[in-house]
């Protein structure tokens, strides 16, 4: 039910804390989401709309850059990224080993007026 609410609240808090004193409007927020973070952009957008009402960020456009975790196949040795539905190697369908985990949520940049 509340999945995503806390992270969205943290995004809003971070953005507002970064807002310079002479700015009164946030127009854009660029966010990086790791595929193992457990959060999805559409949910964040939904909660952001609710939480940001009556704040300088209420009209901000949110953009998401998805980072995918990397695996090395234990069979064919190829590097591959996790797909939406599988952690298997897309080349030989074997399982691999996680070598780079993307589980963070970062704000990269914001645009203000």
């Amino acid at each position, binding site marked *: 039910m*509340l999945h995503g609410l806390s992270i969205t609240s943290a995004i809003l808090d971070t953005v507002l804390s970064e807002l310079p004193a002479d700015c009164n409007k946030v127009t854009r927020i660029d966010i990086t989401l790791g595929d193992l973070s*457990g959060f999805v952009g559409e949910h964040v957008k939904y909660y952001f709309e609710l939480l940001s009402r009556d704040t300088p960020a209420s009209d901000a456009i949110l953009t998401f850059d998805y980072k995918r975790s990397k695996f090395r196949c234990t069979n064919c040795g190829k590097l591959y990224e996790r797909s939406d539905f599988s952690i298997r190697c897309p080349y030989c369908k074997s399982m691999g080993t996680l070598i780079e985990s993307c589980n963070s*949520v*970062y*704000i990269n940049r914001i645009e203000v007026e």
Partner: protein
Amino acid sequence: MEIKVIKDVLEANNYIACKVKEEIAKRQAMMINIIGSPGAGKTSFIVKTIQYLDIKSVVIEGDVTSDIDSRKVAEFGIPVVQVNTGGGCHLNANIIDLALQELSSSAENAIIFVENVGNLICPASFDIGEDFKVAVSSLPEGHDKPYKYPAVFEKARATVLNKIDLKRHVEFDRDSFYEGVKTLNPDGYIFEVSSLLGDGIKEWIQWLKQQFMRKLNH
């Protein structure tokens, strides 16, 4: 105007988590964050572990609401604090900071078991200041859990496969489960236990004591 930020949005939580870690180190304690879905048998697993363990133990019970689990733990004479999130689907570092204050001296030279809210998603994202996470999964949930909820299995130092006493009664592809966990977490440990009968608990306890001794000796 553009402002470069590059900030982890969980920075505020992580800051408190660091404070909690320091507090736990000061108390010469070790804290374990137990994560699993509702009904995985987390409470029974914690109780059975403490019954077999010859190290002082305390429990922080996290639930959306109710004190059912903490009453169950207290029946065994184990010091316990119940925290309710009031709708929140995970514990955060601030809640644990407050719970530790309640536990005061009983959480010294001890293992602190934190039972997170029953959920395989959000709890994996929030550091509560624990020494390590333990994922609890059970046979009736199915072998697909590492594939559907990868984050928790990736982050857990140990995965506990509970309710192995039910293996004759449920369909469970053990190889597939192991393959999923090992793909995400090649260095992680897996323990098969029955919290009901005590099967496998001794092996788990032995490992747990090693973790505790290793921490104290550092």
